[in-house]
């Protein structure tokens, strides 16, 4: 029954994706750890960490697609959930530093010492335990999303209004976390991590392990999203996206549906953030920046909204392009990236995954099963 629940909606593409992900999750660490540096197939640690980061971005994109692609909620604040998850993990990593900080205080992180904090604030308690921190990485974004969604969806805030208040939310959090008084390290955030679960964060094995963990998390999240979207609940979500008020007249409590996916999505984003932080080594309020949320939206759009594989590819592609361009064309890369965004919108109107099969079908003359229509209603302005 459970097996059926998780797999009945899986398409062939989905299986292929999972297989590739599993292969990458195993192979990349192996190529990094088992092969000597001189071997042509050796995977440099730099690339492992980078790919691990992409995977966490992909997880964020997947979470966003769940609400935007399937339920029409355009969140311009998803980075907030990501960052909160990241902070939860960052706090754990911070506590793991122990007396190895520059001031050697066994309890207080460095930034607290030089700002003269005498004791650990209560909300830092318990974060020395990994399970607590991991749980918080899910619970904090989840609770914030739940409370935010509870009010917003009940009040029937929708369309661009919802988008903008999600942006206001992340912006407010950005400013709040900037404040040194908040006790999260102000603008510098949390950094200088040493180890996770006793493993040295600077060792290749830990990095490979984090990569594999990210792949696993992404795989599980993907399966969960497939299950959700292919269930009747998924169909209700699409119905809400297309004609919200009509759905109500059928007796569906739209706000409950929205709240459900919204919260699930926020928790997935939090998980992504928690996996992101140990791999990049820093979490600071910059992660709350509205531009980050917008970028995540762009990954989804590029990959193909309303397809689950699309956002994953989109996140990977855009970030790979960014990594590559910023080194290869440091002074022109914005032109390249900007042009990429425009080109994809114009020439691949349904994103990579939405459009390529069509183009392929056109080219080969075969017909393919189209993904759920990714077009949405006009924003309130045009309605």
């Amino acid at each position, binding site marked *: 029954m459970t097996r059926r629940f998780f797999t009945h909606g899986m398409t062939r593409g989905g299986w292929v994706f999972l297989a590739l992900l599993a292969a990458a999750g195993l192979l990349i660490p192996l190529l990094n750890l088992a092969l000597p540096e001189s071997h042509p197939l050796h995977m440099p640690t730099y690339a492992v960490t980078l790919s691990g980061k992409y995977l966490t971005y992909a997880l964020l994109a997947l979470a966003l697609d769940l609400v935007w692609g399937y339920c029409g909620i355009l969140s311009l604040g998803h980075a907030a959930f990501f960052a909160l998850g990241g902070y939860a993990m960052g706090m754990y990593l911070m506590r793991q530093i122990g007396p190895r900080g520059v001031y050697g205080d066994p309890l207080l992180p460095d930034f607290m010492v030089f700002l003269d904090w005498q004791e650990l604030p209560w909300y830092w308690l318990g974060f020395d335990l990994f399970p607590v921190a991991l749980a918080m990485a899910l619970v904090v974004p989840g609770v914030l999303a739940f409370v935010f969604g509870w009010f917003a969806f009940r009040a029937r805030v929708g369309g661009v209004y919802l988008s903008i208040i999600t942006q206001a939310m992340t912006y407010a959090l950005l400013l709040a976390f900037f404040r040194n008084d908040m006790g999260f390290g102000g603008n510098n955030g949390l950094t200088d991590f040493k180890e996770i679960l006793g493993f040295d964060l600077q060792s290749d094995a830990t990095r490979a392990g984090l990569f594999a963990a990210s792949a696993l998390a992404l795989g599980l999240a993907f399966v969960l999203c497939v299950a959700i979207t292919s*269930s009747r609940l998924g169909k*209700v979500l699409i119905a809400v996206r297309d004609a919200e008020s009509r759905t*109500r007249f*059928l007796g569906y409590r739209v706000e*409950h549906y929205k709240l459900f996916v919204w919260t699930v999505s926020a928790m997935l984003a939090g998980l992504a953030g928690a996996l992101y932080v140990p791999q990049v080594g820093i979490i600071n309020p910059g992660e709350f920046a509205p531009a980050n949320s917008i970028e995540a939206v762009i990954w989804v759009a590029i990959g193909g909204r309303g397809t689950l594989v699309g956002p994953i590819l989109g996140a990977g592609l855009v970030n790979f392009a960014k990594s590559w361009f910023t080194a290869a064309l440091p002074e022109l890369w914005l032109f390249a990236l900007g042009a990429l965004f425009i080109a994809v919108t114009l020439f691949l109107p349904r994103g990579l995954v939405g459009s390529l099969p069509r183009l392929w079908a056109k080219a080969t003359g075969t017909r393919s099963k189209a993904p759920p229509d990714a077009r949405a209603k006009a924003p309130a302005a045009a309605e």
Partner: protein
Amino acid sequence: MPDEPGQPDPHRHDTLLYLDGVSVAFDGFQALNNLSMVVGRTEMRAVIGPNGAGKTTMMDVITGKTRPDSGTLRFGETIDLTRHDEADIASFGIGRKFQKPTVFESHTVEDNLALALKGRRGPFAALFHVASDDERQRIDDLLSLIRLAHLRAAPAGGLSHGQKQWLEIGMLLAQDPQLLLIDEPAAGMTDAETAATAELLRDIARTHSVVVVEHDMAFVRALDVKVTVLHEGSVLAEGSLDHVSANRKVIDVYLGR
């Protein structure tokens, strides 16, 4: 002035829908004006009236889309409809077909019906829902009834106007509500289809309560039920079609000569 003032009695056992003194104004325009009406269990009622008389607004009020400024609105014996929202009201058993057809455009015709099917509406129920044979059968039946079986897998967004009307009727039937509110079902149908629809509704009304709004007099005649004429937000006349069509006022404001 209503010439057959039916005394509404909310406590009658066979009263399903009870409206008393319902008024709604939009920016000062009185769309419903002290409207009172009673619909009994398994009663079918036809509502006619000039464009802008308030027929659709009445349905909006009953289904929770529009809040009345004043008046009583009761469903069954106990439920005060003014205290509930659309989803609640739908789950009490009030279904509606809109004047302007609204369907889920990116869902297939079949999924549109499946979503409308009677059943538990919570997110978790939906998450773990598995389609039963009964449900599949019911969808098949409805598809052939609304003559869209050949388009069952087509996205509803691509249907013609009339096909969407039919799909909406199908969705309403799938809901299997106690009370069906049907706004202009015959619009865009051929005469033959209109007749068939009237037949279908009569059939349904044996076990359900139905309120139909329609401007097609042939259709209303075929229904052969009590007719309520609305005008400027309140009841102008009530009675059999022959009775109301003889009313001078009804002729003046509605039927014309």
